[in-house]
């Protein structure tokens, strides 16, 4: 029998189908594996961190005793007024059996050391409280918080616990009377950093990141787009532009710590800008994101079909009119996508910030571009390195906040692309 072409094809057909099937299975496996990793990441962060959005509070009836507070008419004397004594007094009233000095100290350690500032701020807002008794929910100490949330065991021996048997007894009494409960943790979203887990918040780091990103966006986007347009549409192709192109591609792959060192040498040492300022952080991030934006913008310009350019030039448009009236509007969605992805990378960066002093403990929330500030990923790093158990959940919660920002930015990039994208 003579073997015809169709026979050869038929013989190999089964093998080819099998190969295709195998390839599809590999693909599904690859996607499944990455989804499992992603799910694992989200679940472990989520289960560790969701408890941080709640905080244990203890209800106290605070009596603003005029005798203890003394003169409260002036701002200066208010700062030194004895608010800690007021908190202590109301606690002791709840547990009249506590007498000795040591026991009193153990009792007051159930309440956050920030409680007196809390009460002070309340009083500053409403000075008429003097002489009155108010029911206030006060944040509990982080050891109590961890116990209530079940992150520390109640069953282990007394010596190994942060809270002793007496303190446990008091907490159980508070629980029976309904004077202790978990509430939504507003402190976490409104406060700056603190060394007390119950007083630490993400807002300081978030505003630091915000100021840094504003500087980065305002500088890197215009410069990046201008550079891309010139290189793509106006510059002649010669050795110089080749060298520039190679350099830009190289810069995009440079490790970020190098930009930090550059920032230290140029912005801090040469120009004498302040350490730890979002302004300098933004400048360093600009250097880092510029190559990314230039490359993305050039790709976007390249994807605009030559027919558009030729048609514009054909009806008498100048080179510049052709670019700004016809090519740029079509390329802009792609450029924006590149910019947002570059910004998202900058948002998650810590290494360059280390060199310019933004890896720091900063309590006051920054209010401008030159105030000392830190950034979200730095805050995560600092909390992860803190010994207190309470910071464990705070770390995961901060990661969730950062991820939310990143997802929002990437989603924005996708939406912009979908909305303005034109297909030919």
């Amino acid at each position, binding site marked *: 029998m003579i073997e015809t072409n169709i026979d050869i094809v038929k013989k190999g057909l089964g093998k080819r189908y099998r190969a295709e099937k195998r390839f599809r299975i590999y693909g599904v496996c690859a996607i499944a594996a990455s989804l499992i990793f992603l799910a694992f990441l989200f679940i472990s962060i989520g289960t560790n961190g969701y408890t941080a959005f709640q905080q244990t509070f203890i209800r106290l009836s605070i009596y603003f005793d005029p005798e203890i507070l003394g003169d409260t008419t002036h701002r200066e004397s208010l*700062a030194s007024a004895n608010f800690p004594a007021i908190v202590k007094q109301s606690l002791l009233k709840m547990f009249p059996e506590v007498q000795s000095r040591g026991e009193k*100290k153990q009792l007051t350690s159930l309440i956050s*050391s*920030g409680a007196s*500032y809390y009460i002070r701020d309340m009083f500053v807002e409403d000075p008429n409280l003097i002489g009155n008794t108010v029911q206030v929910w006060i944040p509990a100490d982080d050891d109590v918080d961890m116990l209530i949330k079940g992150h*520390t*065991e109640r069953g*282990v021996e007394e*010596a*190994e*616990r*942060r809270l002793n048997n007496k303190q446990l007894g008091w907490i159980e009494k508070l629980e029976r009377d309904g004077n202790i409960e978990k509430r939504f943790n507003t402190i976490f979203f409104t406060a700056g950093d*603190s*060394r*007390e887990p119950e007083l630490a918040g993400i807002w300081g780091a978030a505003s630091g990141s915000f100021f840094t990103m504003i*500087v980065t966006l*305002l*500088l890197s*986007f*215009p*410069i990046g*787009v*201008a550079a891309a347009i010139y290189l793509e549409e106006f510059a002649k192709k010669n050795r110089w532009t080749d060298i520039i192109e190679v350099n830009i591609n190289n810069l995009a792959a440079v490790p970020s710590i190098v930009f930090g060192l550059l920032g230290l040498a140029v912005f*801090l040492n040469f*120009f*004498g*800008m*302040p*350490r*730890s300022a979002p*302004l300098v952080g933004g*400048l360093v991030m600009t250097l880092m994101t510029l190559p990314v934006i230039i490359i993305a913008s050039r790709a976007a310009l390249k994807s605009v079909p030559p027919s558009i350019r030729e048609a514009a030039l054909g009806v008498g448009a100048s080179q510049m009119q052709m670019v*700004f*009236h*016809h090519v*740029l*509007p079509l390329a*802009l969605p792609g450029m924006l996508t590149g910019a947002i992805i570059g910004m998202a990378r900058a948002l998650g960066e810590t290494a360059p910030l280390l060199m310019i*002093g933004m*890896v*720091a*403990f*900063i*309590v*006051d929330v920054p209010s401008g*571009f*030159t105030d*000392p500030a830190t950034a979200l990923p730095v805050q995560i790093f*600092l909390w*992860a*390195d*803190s*010994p*207190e*158990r309470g910071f*464990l959940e705070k770390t995961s919660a901060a990661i969730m906040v950062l991820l939310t920002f990143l997802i929002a930015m990437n989603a924005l990039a996708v939406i912009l692309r979908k909305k303005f994208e034109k297909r030919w």
Partner: protein
Amino acid sequence: MKGKKIFAGLGVAAALTFGAITFNSNAIADSARDYISVVGSSTVYPFATVVAEQFGKTAGFKTPKIESTGTGGGMKLFCSGVGVQHPDIANASRRMKKSECEMCDKNGVKDILEVKIGYDGIVLGASKKSSAMNITRKELFLALAANVPEASGAESLVPNPYKTWKDINPALPANKIEVLGPPPTSGTRDAFVELVMEKGGAEFGWIKALEKSDKKEDKDKFKSICHTIREDGAYIEAGENDNLIVQKLDANPKAFGIFGFSFLDQNGDKIQGTPVEGVVPTFEAIADGKYSVSRPLYFYVKKAHVDVIPGMKEFLKEFASEKAWGEDGYLSEKGLIPMPDDERKSFTKDVQTLKNLSCGDL
């Protein structure tokens, strides 16, 4: 047309930002800094930050900014000059080196105040699930050095042959040697090498003779014997993050971890401290010097800045107050081991009189 407008807008934005930056940085160079800037050791960081926070909330000044740069990096920044762009205080988990003091001097930082704040114990921790194992510094040296003296007693080195603790001392369990510890960049590692490995090595007469020898090459040899940690997997570099070590110990009861006392203090329900030379690392044992593996912590103040930066004197006073570094102070709650009474008094006096540190004393 739209594209042109967008582009013009972006151009204006870039120009404005550039303008703002040049204007801003000029303005900053002229005006003084109104907050204290602290740099230095990551070991002192958890204590300095507590004081800073307390100070910011009560004293009516801005909260000091504290950077965790490591002791060496902090010294470099601190010694780079006098002026508001340079930090005011450097934290250190060891004493300032003579070379650092000379560098300070060369850059015009001539008057420095040295303050010891307390002690930090270095702990060999293990999971609560394991039974405690009493260990000596000599055994630790034999377990972790890259090259150890021959078991026969000859004065020569062999690559570390010990696989289990039992190989070193028959009284110890037959568990694989597994120690999680900090990388060489860490101050905790420096202190561990100095307090455990050097002392452990010096238990061998001929190694001790090298240390005491006047010849530089002998001293170098001593250092290379005691400072080189084995790299065959028995010592696992676990990064600078002590929390990670604590979690890994909890998962692997046979492993040990090296970290600061404050982590043991905070995780007493999961981790136990291994007794070294028969002494369990407790607050009391470190405070009265019975536990041998502890180190002093310091900070250094640039005296030229004391009257320039607002709040410097008050901050020093807060740090050197009984309610901060005293026996029952809030720093002891964070795991700092207070100095004995007379030592505290002497340093409080140094702070009040702003005593000068001379490089010759180091």
